[in-house]
């Protein structure tokens, strides 16, 4: 037979699509060509495959070799086709029995000595293989544990081309890889507990409300007041990831080549630097990879020094904050990465940082402060429900008050509030708008009248009105009540925007 086929997979977004690797060897001038929309890295497979085959002790056919990657319309990228091409070539030469390649997905990058190197997106490939009904997945050893963590498909890790050939010819028995001990849902890492933060009870309460309702937060305060420390602890009070969520999170990290080798059980916390580019934040590039907003999927995206981010960069956050995913359009394909995040932003109140601080004088002019705060895009601010001022506390204030509560107690309350929301409306309170919002937020007793007064006296706009209502709903959920009463509404008023940003 002169045509043999191996099955492989390629990444599109965080999903792996099946690719058939067909190899034809025919008489003619010796040559090696690859067709089927391969990119540069795939083209280079010719050299790697040739050398790896000879260095593994096999003979590369001195005939005309044509490799076709089907379906032809899909752009193929990356070095993961090296191993299936090599195996299919060897199947044509009769070294590997062709029928044994059937029903097995193969991915892997070859090195010149015939060894195998890891690939990006192993978990996504395993999921794709399972979906496609493949019996097994053969890939480099370093990816095996990650791929095995999803289950439902037998995963075999190989260290070299030689080993893979032996495996397929039945010469060598290989045990299927097992997932690394993933244990129970990960406990909050010991360093990041709210119990370690003295004072700042207002900010902690605000973060509890944010976690409960999925609200985005903006913290404003002078340097050294603990904004970053507080934000880091937010993932720890979110409920643990469900298995489905874990898989999604791990897939995104795997597709970005940042997989840890096991299923991720902790909610991600990402804090990109403010010099980040648009595609760094949203994802993209010529070989598209997920950006920070997707890596923070189901977790917290923390933007420190919020006004320093370029406006164009921040604008790309509008879609994910609205829809929960990012769409990237390229000439070759349009793909989408999941990106459902809780956004936490922090900023100084003015360029020097000390406006409103009691112990240091602010050096900025009123105009400078106005310009600094005006730098933040209005549409993005509209997606933030909670505004918290985080002052620097004096020693007296750090000492006073109740003992700090550990994260796990807060997490229990958050979980309850979230359950209540899901039972009632199936989405978090932060996603409520329009008619749905009014249906769900019934004002009880005097709260209707109180809200009227608040709108008049505080000059709340329509949007601000909705924000207060959403937050009041979450406060009521935390208290375990079905209607919003006066005290819930009054608390919600404290999280409104300060006059800085307009209303």
């Amino acid at each position, binding site marked *: 037979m002169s045509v043999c086929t191996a099955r492989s997979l390629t990444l599109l977004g965080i999903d792996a699509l099946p690719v058939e690797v067909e190899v034809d060897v025919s008489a003619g001038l010796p040559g090696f060509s690859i067709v089927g929309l391969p990119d540069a890295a795939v083209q280079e497979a010719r050299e790697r495959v040739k050398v790896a085959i000879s260095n593994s002790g096999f003979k590369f056919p001195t005939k005309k070799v044509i490799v076709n990657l089907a379906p032809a319309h899909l752009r193929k990228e990356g070095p993961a086709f090296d191993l299936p091409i090599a195996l299919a070539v060897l199947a044509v030469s009769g070294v590997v029995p062709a029928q044994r390649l059937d029903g097995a997905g193969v991915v892997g990058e070859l090195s010149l000595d015939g060894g195998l190197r890891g690939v990006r997106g192993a978990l996504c490939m395993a999921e794709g293989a399972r979906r496609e009904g493949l019996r097994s997945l053969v890939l480099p050893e370093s990816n095996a544990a990650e791929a095995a963590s999803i289950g439902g498909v037998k995963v075999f890790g190989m260290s070299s081309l030689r080993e893979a050939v032996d495996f397929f010819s039945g010469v060598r028995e290989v045990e299927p890889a097992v997932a690394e001990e993933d244990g129970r849902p990960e406990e909050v890492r010991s360093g990041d507990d709210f119990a370690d933060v003295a*004072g*700042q*009870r*207002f900010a*902690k*309460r605000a973060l509890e409300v944010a976690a409960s309702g999925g609200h985005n937060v903006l913290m*404003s305060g002078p340097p050294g007041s603990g904004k970053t420390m507080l934000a880091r602890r937010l993932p720890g009070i979110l409920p643990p990831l469900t298995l489905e969520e874990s898989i999604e999170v791990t897939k995104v990290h795997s597709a970005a080549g940042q997989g840890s080798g096991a299923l991720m059980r902790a909610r991600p916390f990402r804090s990109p630097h403010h010099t980040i580019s648009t595609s760094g934040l949203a994802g993209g590039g010529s070989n598209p990879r997920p950006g920070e907003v997707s890596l923070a999927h189901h977790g917290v995206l923390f933007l420190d020094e919020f006004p320093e981010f370029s406006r164009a960069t921040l604008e790309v956050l509008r879609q994910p904050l609205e829809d929960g995913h990012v769409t990237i359009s390229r000439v070759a394909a349009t793909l989408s990465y999941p990106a459902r995040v809780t956004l936490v932003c922090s900023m100084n*109140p003015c360029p020097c940082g000390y*406006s*409103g*601080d009691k112990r240091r*004088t*602010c050096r900025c*002019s*009123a*105009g400078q*402060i*106005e310009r600094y705060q005006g730098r933040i895009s209005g549409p993005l601010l509209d997606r933030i429900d909670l505004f*918290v*001022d985080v*002052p620097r*506390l*004096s020693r*007296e*204030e750090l000492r*006073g*008050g*109740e003992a700090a509560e550990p994260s796990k107690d807060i997490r229990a309350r958050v979980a309850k509030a979230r359950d209540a929301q899901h039972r009632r409306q199936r989405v978090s309170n932060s996603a409520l708008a329009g008619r749905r919002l009014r249906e769900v937020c019934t004002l009880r007793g005097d709260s209707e009248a*109180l809200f009227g*007064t*608040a709108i008049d*006296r*505080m000059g709340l706009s329509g949007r601000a009105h909705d924000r207060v209502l959403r937050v009041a709903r979450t*406060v009521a959920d935390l208290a375990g009540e079905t209607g919003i009463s*006066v*005290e*819930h*509404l*009054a*608390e*919600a*008023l*404290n999280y409104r925007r*300060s*006059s*800085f940003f307009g209303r």
Partner: protein
Amino acid sequence: MAGRDQASYLFLSLLQARTGTSFVSRLGDVPLTAVPEMSSAELGQRVRMTERAARAFEDLRRDFDPGAMIGELERRGISMLTPADAGYPPRLTKVPDPPPALFVDGTLPEALRDELPEAVAVVGSRKASPSGLDAARRLGGALGERGVCVISGLALGIDAAAHEGALEAGGSTVGVLGCGIDVVYPRSNHRLFGKVRESGALVSEYHLGEAPLAWRFPARNRIIAGLCGSVVVVEAAEKSGALITARHALDAGGDVWAVPGPLGLAECRGSNKLLADGAGCIWDVAEFVEAIAPVPAGGIVPLEKPLDVSLPAGLAPGEAAALAGVGFEPTEVDAVAGRSGLKMQELLSALGLLELKGYIHRDGSGAFVRRPAG
């Protein structure tokens, strides 16, 4: 002849906008009307001029077209007052460097046309505290109610609050600018500019389109001081322009008043120092207004209840505890929590309710301040 005078004054005004404020006062016995006709060399023999000033003078002399400029002012409804005009505020002639021309957009209130003391400047910091803003607004309102014209500089902070207070009380108010009469600076005050123009006037010594350069603001303070009999400083840091206004007022024989501020606040050190140096202390709005503009018959009419330190009756226990924890200087939520001993969520509810009832006020940095009930 009047036309020629006007042209000369306009020329001097434009020249002064380029060379600095004291040029006219240094002319000595040079007749004003002769200046536009002289060459810079001739003028240089009589007055000491820098090279830059001489160049500005030559440039100006070459392009000077008084007819077109005055026509443009008329077309825009802006009047020009010179010391030769009857409408020129008489008090202004007594400041060390009276502006050679005053551009007025709107109607200059009667109070400025004679020497009655019925105009008061309220000035202070751009970065004022909420209680400072509150004080400026109340002073502006009380003065406006009593028919006293409120003069200020249309800057952010205290200036804007004083203008707004006067406008809310239906009083007349005058804004003195440090830039061209048609330039709105700062931009965020543009709505206030319109309102001040309607119920009073915008005044500037600078012709159309002159930029808001930093040195022009201290210079315009002498006009603020020169237009009125008394200057009130609400909040001023130690190097504040408001203190320059106060010094000008003292030089011109006016009164200076100041509102006492809390200890330790940098934004109040300048105004507190004025008090220590003997400025009038504004401890009560009604008493102050009475001192400025006494009502002919009858005693002092209390304008409002004084701030009551004791807790008002009828508050829920939580609210009372929260209110007791809020200070008269800005207090952060966590500090209030420490003082009141309330749980955070109870405290937040209480603070929200207290704010709605008007007992407390939240400032731009999220701190709370007590205010008089109402």
